C-alpha cells in the first residue's frame, strides 16, 4: 500500500492527519459550502452586505420562492423526462452492441468498436448543426424526446466501450458451455450474459444519469422553451433573470445539483466502479 499506512507512523503524525483531512475538505468544498450557505441566507442579509457572516436567520423560504416564482419544478421534471429514457435506451442498446463486439469474432469487429469509441470522444460541436437540423426535420425540435433520442445515440458510444470491456472480462467458457448445450445466441444473451451484467448496468445507469442530467450544451441546442428545457438550461436562463439575487441562484443551483448528488451517494460503489471500469478497464 502506498503511501505507508498512517497507522504505522507516530501518534503525532496520526493526529495531524486526522485534523488535516477535514480541514482540506472544507477548503476543497469552499465554493459549494458558500453557495449552500447563501441558499439559506435571507435576501435582507445580501442587501446589507452580509455575504459571509453567519446568516441572520435560516431562510428556507428561498427554496419555496424558487419553486413558486420560477418554473424550476417544471425544469426538473423535464430533466427527468430526458434523463430516464436516455438511461434506459442507452443501456439497452449498449448491452446488445457490447455483447456483439465482445463475443463474436468477425472481420470488422475492431473497426466497429473503434468507431464507437472514437465517436464517443468527438467534440460534440461538430455534431451540433446537423443534429439540430435532423431534429428539426424529424419534428422533434424542442421536445424532450428529441433531446433524449440524441443522447441515447451519443451515449451508446461510451456505453458500448464500457459494456464490451465488461463482457470481455466475463469467462468466455460460459458462452461456450451454453453453445455446447444448444442454447441459441439470443437466449445466451438473455439468460446467460444479461444476468451477469447487472453490476455493469447499475454502474452505467448512475453514470449516464449524471452525465445527462448535467448536460447543458445539447439542452441549449435542442430545446428553447421553459416547457421543455431541462434544469441546466433552465438554471442558466433563470440566472439571467435573477440578477444579483444570489440567494435564489444558490438555491436553484443546489436544487439542480441534488438529484445527481443523491444518485451518487446511493449508488456510490457502482458509480466509481463505472467510472474506472469504463475507463481503466
Amino acid at each position: 500500500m502506498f503511501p505507508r499506512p498512517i497507522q504505522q507512523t507516530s501518534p503525532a503524525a496520526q493526529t495531524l492527519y486526522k485534523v488535516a483531512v477535514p480541514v482540506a475538505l472544507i477548503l476543497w468544498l469552499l465554493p459549494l459550502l458558500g453557495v449552500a450557505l447563501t441558499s439559506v441566507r435571507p435576501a435582507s442579509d445580501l442587501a446589507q452586505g452580509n455575504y459571509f457572516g453567519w446568516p441572520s436567520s435560516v431562510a428556507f423560504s428561498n427554496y419555496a420562492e424558487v419553486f413558486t416564482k420560477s418554473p424550476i419544478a417544471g425544469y426538473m421534471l423535464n430533466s427527468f423526462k430526458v434523463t430516464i429514457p436516455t438511461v434506459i435506451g442507452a443501456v439497452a442498446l449498449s448491452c446488445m452492441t457490447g455483447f456483439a463486439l465482445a463475443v463474436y469474432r468477425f472481420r470488422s469487429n475492431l473497426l466497429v468498436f473503434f468507431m464507437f469509441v472514437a465517436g464517443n470522444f468527438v467534440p460534440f460541436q461538430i455534431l451540433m448543426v446537423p443534429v439540430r437540423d435532423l431534429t428539426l426535420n424529424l419534428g422533434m425540435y424542442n421536445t424532450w424526446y428529441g433531446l433524449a433520442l440524441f443522447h441515447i445515440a451519443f451515449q451508446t458510444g461510451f456505453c458500448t466501450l464500457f459494456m464490451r470491456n465488461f463482457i470481455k472480462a466475463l469467462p468466455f467458457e460460459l458462452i461456450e458451455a451454453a453453445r455446447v448445450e444448444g442454447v441459441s445466441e439470443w437466449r445466451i444473451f438473455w439468460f446467460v450474459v444479461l444476468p451477469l451484467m447487472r453490476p455493469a448496468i447499475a454502474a452505467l445507469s448512475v453514470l449516464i444519469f449524471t452525465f445527462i442530467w448535467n448536460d447543458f450544451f445539447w439542452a441549449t441546442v435542442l430545446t428553447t422553451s421553459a416547457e421543455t428545457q431541462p434544469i441546466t438550461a433552465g438554471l442558466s436562463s433563470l440566472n439571467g433573470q435573477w440578477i444579483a439575487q444570489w440567494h435564489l441562484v444558490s438555491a436553484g443551483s443546489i436544487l439542480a445539483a441534488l438529484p445527481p448528488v443523491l444518485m451518487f451517494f446511493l449508488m456510490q460503489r457502482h458509480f466509481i466502479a463505472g467510472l474506472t471500469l469504463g475507463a481503466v478497464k
Partner: protein
Amino acid sequence: QEKRTLTYNADYDPIPLAAMEALIADFEAANPDIDVVLNNFDHEGYKTAIRNFLTADAPDLANWYAGNRMAPFVNAGQFMDVSDVWEANGLSDSLASAKASMTIDGKQWGIPYTYYQWGIYYNRDAYAAAGVDLPADGMTYDQFVANCEKFAAAGIDCLTTGTKALWPGAGIFDYMSLRTNGYEWHMDLTAGKVEWTDQKVRDVFAQWARIQPFITKNHAAIDWQDAAALLVQGKAANYVMGNFAVGVFKEGGMTNDNLGFMVFPEITPGIPRAEEAPTDTIHIPAGAKNVDDAKKFLAFMASPEAQTKWNAAQGQLPVNKNASVNTEDPFLVAGFQMLSTAEGGIAQFFDRDAPAEMAKAGMEGFQEFMVKPENLDAILERLEKVRQRVYQ
C-alpha cells in the same frame, strides 16, 4: 364552445409581462372565442430561440424589434407581410413615426407598440454627496467631464454601466457618435458606409476616452442590473440607460425625488440633436397557424387604448400618436419631450441599426475600449475588417 388558441412567444421581464397579461385578458374578454397562450422566454435566450421556433415550431405571434434587426427574418420569408392590417386600421397615420422602421420592400412586417427613450439617469443623492451641482438643461460634455473628476475625488463612479451582456456599452457609443458626428453620419456608419478607421470614428472615441477613466471599473463583469444597484446605492452617479431601467431603480428604492434624468450632453456644438429610442414590435411568423386571429391581435395591439394601457404600466412611450402618455411619470414626460424635440433624428440602437455580425463585433470593441482604451487602433482595424466582410 371550442376556443381557438393563439400562441404568442414573447420575452418580457416581470413588469411588462404583467402588463401584457392584463392586455391579453382584455383581448380575450373582447374575443371570448380566442385563447391566447403566452410563452414567455428569458430575454436573452429569446434572441436565440426565435431562430429555432420560427422554422420549427412557429407560434402565431412573436416579439421582435424594428429596423435592420428584422431584416434577416423578412428576407428569409419567416415573417408575414401585414400591410393589410396597417391598411385596414389606418396605421400608416397613427403609427407614422415608426412606419419607416417597419417597412422593407414597401411592405410592413409587424406592429410597433412601444418605444422608450435613452438618456442619462442620475442619482441626486450622489450629486449631493460629491458636492456636485445637479445637471441643468443645456449642459455640455466638458461640464460633464469636469463633474466626473469631482465624483472621482469623492470616490463615486461618475458613470456606471454593466457590459457583461455587451449591449449597454453600445448605448454609450451611440450617444458619443450621435453627439460627435450627428445622426446622418451615425446612420452611415451603421449602414457600413463609413470605414471604422476613419478619423471621424477616432474623434468619437477620443471624446469617449475622456470619460472612460470614470466609468465603473468592473463593468465588464456585471450585468446592467448590477450597475443599476450601484446607482441606487449612490456608488455611481450617472447611468446611460434606456427608460426601462426606471422600474429597476425604483424597485431598488429610488423615487422621483432622488432619481433624475437628463438628455445626453452636447459634444460638438451645433449638430442637430438626435436621440435613441428602440422600438419593440410584434410579428406574425410565416408559419403561423391561426393567422386571422393573429391579425386581430395585431390590430388590437396597434390601438391607442392598448398602447396607452401597456405603456402606462411599463413606463414607456406608445407609438400610436393617439395614445396618451402617463403625465404622472416625470421620466415619460421628459422622454416624450426629448424625443419630440429631437430634430436630428431618432436612432434605434446599435444592434438594431447595424447587421448582427457587425453589431456583435462592434459591441465587443466598445467593451474592450472601455476596459483598455489603449487598444483602440487594434479594435478599429478589427471592426473595419468585419465591416468589409459583412457589407460586401
